[in-house]
Structures are given as structure tokens and as C-alpha cells.
């Protein structure tokens, strides 16, 4: 069976870049990924890519080279990057292609995202009366979770402390300064129990990865992590998602639980085998809940894990080693691929001051509106 490897990785640092478009940052990432693999754009057989707010990814073609390459634009909400990776994975797995690129970039206006009720199939009054904010959803989801599983507000704060701590040793991060627990806990409350420093911000950035079949990789004399499992899943009945005027009484599992299980099954490994993980941390609460939804701990155990520093770089399972969305910001189209980029750096031993020693299996999970999750498991 054809194996799929990541043989090149490039990134444009995340943050705010007033002098650059989203596309500029995407093109930068592709050139860096190609240089990393020692390849030319003309070598590339296919590309998948997308942005949420910065235009079509194939607008990169005139700048990269009009080679006639198959280029497909991907648009899949917050899982756009994960979906591009999955598309590239299957393109090679099918045997149809053996060398391609996946690309994601974005550039958003400052502040919370604007939402359009009618585009989401919702009545206009829902947005008019102030109930259509992703921030509220995150707050209400973690509020109930905290109540059911005895999670304290301090634990939410500790997630953010760790994120900014990791950001200080990550060249591609936006927030590079540490923030102490007290500052996080006493910063402006945006939507209780979440304060300003517990939320990520919309940002800018670009990421690109070069994928190859194992045969092609060897032919080129290159090496890189193997994609052992990859899956995208959407919201099942009874899951709790953004922009929901009502919920079923009977509660169900989340799209993350479905994607996670599918990826573990495909990879033939379990949560206990994972050495390093990047999981969606749109805000502190999301990281807490995703720790359990991805199987790393039971509901409620996060309280002790965070108190012990189990998810710090020195802990038993380092999580969001580059500071995640909290320290990098969230350019939607690029965010999921940033997680994979970070895992590639970790597995190749190139993560410098944030290197997790001996990392062999790396996990990534991106989640977002309107209720979908993408998981990838890499092995070196």
C-alpha cells in the first residue's frame, strides 16, 4: 500500500503583517516548503489549498509558476487546512499522483468574527438580538463542562500560561512574551468564565507542506514523517455546536470524538502512544475539553494534569508546543496546517528550544464552525 510522507514544510510567521496580503504569506510558505525539500514548483503534480478571508488559494499560481498543475481550492470552515491535507493524502494514497503541495493562508480583520445569520440558515433576529457570537458558544460550552467535571477557572488560566510560555520559544508565534497567571485571570472578562488572555485572536499567516509517496521520497533521496492516520468528521446528532438556537435533550458525541477515533483506527495506535499533540485551543476551555475528546485523559482529569504541568514542554504529554492558537492567533485557512507544521518540526528534531525529546508519534486536531474536526497522526 502506498505510504504518504511530508518531505517539506514552510511557514510564514503568524501575527499581524500590515505590509503583506494573505496571499503573499501563502506564497512565502510554499517557497519555503519547496526549498526545504530542494524542489522546484515545476516538480509539483498537484496542489490543494484554501483561505477563509484572503481569496482563492490558486491565485498563487501566477507567482509560483503557470505550469498547468492540477490545483483545487478547498473551503471547509476552520478545517480548511486539515481538509487540504486529507485531500493531498488521498491523492497520493490512490496512486494517481506521487508529489504535491498543500497550502493554507489567511488574513482577517481585527476583533471577533462577524457572523451572517442567513448564511448559516438562521433567522435574522438571532443575530440582531446579540446571540450569534462564537465567543458565547465557547463560554457556555466550557461553563457546563466545568460544572459537570469540577474544572476550576484557575485551570483555564494555566492553559493560557503554558501557551504564552511556549510562544516565547517559537519563531513563528505571534505572542512571544510570557503572561503570568494573575494577569490572565484578572484581564478583561469577555464572556464568563473566559477572559481576554484566554481567547485567541483572528490573525494572519501561511503554511505549506510538500507531500510525497514513499517511493518518490526515496527516489529524491529525502526523508520525512509518514501520515499514519487522517480523518475529517462533521457534527453528529446531539453534538453542541456554534450558532444553535436549540439543542436536543438527548446529547451526543462531538465531531472531534468521531474524527479522533477514525484517525486512531486508521493509524492502529491509541492516545497513550502519542508523544506530542497539537489540539484546537480557540480559547482555554477548548483545549481542556479537547484533551478528553481526543482521548488523552478522562473528563475531569484535566484539573490535575494542568496543576502538575503535564501538558507543558517538560510534561508527560506536551500539548500545543508552539503556543497553539492562543500564542499564534487564528488565521482560519492556515491554522490547521500550522499544527501539522509544528508536528513535522518536532518529529524531525528541528523544534529547537521547544523540542520534545524522542518524539515519534505526533497528533493534531483542528475543530471549528459549523461543527467539524480534522485529525492527523504523523510518525517518524
Amino acid at each position, binding site marked *: 500500500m502506498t505510504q504518504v510522507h511530508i518531505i517539506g514544510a514552510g511557514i510564514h510567521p503568524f501575527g499581524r503583517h500590515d505590509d503583506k496580503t494573505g496571499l503573499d504569506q501563502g506564497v512565502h510558505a510554499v517557497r519555503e516548503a519547496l526549498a526545504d525539500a530542494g524542489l522546484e514548483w515545476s516538480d509539483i503534480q498537484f496542489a490543494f489549498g484554501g483561505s477563509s478571508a484572503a481569496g482563492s488559494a490558486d491565485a498563487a499560481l501566477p507567482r509560483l509558476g503557470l505550469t498547468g498543475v492540477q490545483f483545487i481550492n478547498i473551503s471547509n470552515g476552520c478545517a480548511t487546512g486539515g481538509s487540504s491535507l486529507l485531500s493531498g493524502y488521498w491523492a497520493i494514497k490512490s496512486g494517481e499522483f506521487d508529489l504535491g503541495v498543500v497550502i493554507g493562508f489567511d488574513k482577517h480583520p481585527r476583533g471577533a468574527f462577524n457572523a451572517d445569520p442567513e448564511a448559516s440558515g438562521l433567522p435574522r433576529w438571532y443575530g*440582531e*438580538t446579540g446571540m450569534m457570537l462564537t465567543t458565547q458558544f465557547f463560554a457556555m460550552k466550557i461553563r457546563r463542562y466545568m460544572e459537570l467535571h469540577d474544572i476550576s477557572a484557575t485551570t483555564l488560566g494555566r492553559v493560557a500560561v503554558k501557551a504564552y510560555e511556549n510562544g516565547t520559544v517559537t519563531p513563528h508565534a505571534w505572542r512571544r512574551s510570557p503572561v503570568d497567571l494573575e494577569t490572565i485571570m484578572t484581564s478583561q472578562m469577555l*464572556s*464568563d468564565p473566559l477572559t481576554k488572555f484566554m481567547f485567541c485572536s483572528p490573525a494572519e499567516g501561511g503554511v505549506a507542506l510538500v507531500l510525497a509517496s514513499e517511493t518518490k521520497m526515496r527516489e529524491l533521496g529525502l526523508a520525512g514523517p509518514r501520515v499514519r492516520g487522517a480523518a475529517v468528521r462533521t457534527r453528529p446528532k446531539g453534538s453542541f455546536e456554534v450558532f444553535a438556537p436549540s439543542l436536543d*435533550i438527548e446529547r451526543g458525541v462531538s465531531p472531534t470524538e468521531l474524527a479522533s477515533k477514525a484517525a486512531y483506527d486508521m493509524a492502529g495506535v491509541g492516545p497513550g502512544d502519542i508523544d506530542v499533540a497539537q489540539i484546537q485551543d480557540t480559547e482555554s476551555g477548548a483545549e481542556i475539553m479537547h484533551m478528553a475528546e481526543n482521548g488523552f485523559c478522562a473528563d475531569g482529569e484535566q484539573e490535575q494534569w494542568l496543576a502538575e504541568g503535564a501538558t507543558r514542554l517538560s510534561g508527560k504529554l506536551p500539548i500545543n508546543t508552539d503556543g497553539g492558537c492562543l500564542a499564534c492567533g487564528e488565521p482560519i485557512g492556515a491554522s490547521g496546517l500550522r499544527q501539522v507544521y509544528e508536528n513535522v518540526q518536532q518529529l524531525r528534531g528541528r523544534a529547537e528550544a521547544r523540542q520534545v525529546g524522542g518524539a515519534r508519534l505526533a497528533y493534531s486536531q483542528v475543530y471549528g464552525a459549523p461543527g467539524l474536526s480534522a485529525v492527523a497522526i504523523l510518525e517518524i
Partner: protein
Amino acid sequence: MSQVVAEGVFVEGAGGPRMIAGRRKADGEIRFPMPSGADAALYDAIEVTGEGRLWSYTMQRFRPKTPPYIGDDDEKSFKPFALGYVEFPGQVIIEGRILVDDIADLKIGQPMRVAIEKFPTSSRGELSTYAFEPAT
């Protein structure tokens, strides 16, 4: 006289306001609001009955972006408001604004009832909308 936020969202009767939801004819699944357009034919409109229980909640502390928000306020005059989900046992869990000034007293599971809130807007005058309040 204020205008209702939208027709068919709630009714005001002798026993106080009640939410109107849709029950799918095929399997009895209940959703709020009652679907409109082509899907409406698949549902029966029903009144949500009985006392609710607070399922989750938060406080909106910054002014939501316009559009879609149409509150008659600005960044400076905006007053934070509470909102949350209320479970109506055996029926459905509904999201709405909550009529309390401070959420410190709210507790998941506490009894809640439906109320009417006057909501001043910048483009539609004063609207009458549903909200929830502690039942005790």
C-alpha cells in the same frame, strides 16, 4: 406598542409567554425556532410547556458587531447582558437572553421561566422578544 422580534417565535397567553417550537412529523424531534420556508411543512408548531432548568450560561461583556447586532447602543453605552440555554424537560433546550444583572447568582439546574424583554434597536424601533428569568 412594541413590535415582536419575529412572528411565530413565542405567544403571550394567560399563563405567561410560551416559546413556539417545531416538532418534526417524521420522528417527533423538536427544534426551535419552528422552521420556516419549505421545511415548515415537515413540522407541527407546538408550544413549549412547563418550567425550564438552566443548562448553561454566560455574560456578553462587549458589544456584538453590527451587523448582525442591532441594539440601540454603542461601544460606550453598551450594557453587558446574560444569556444561556434552558432545558424544558422532555422537549428541547432553547437559547435566549437572561434577565439578570449579575450572573454570580445563576446556577446550572436552577428553575427558569420564559419572560418578555423590551429590546431597543437602532433600525426596528423597540422590539418585544423572549427571554428567560429565574423562576424563584
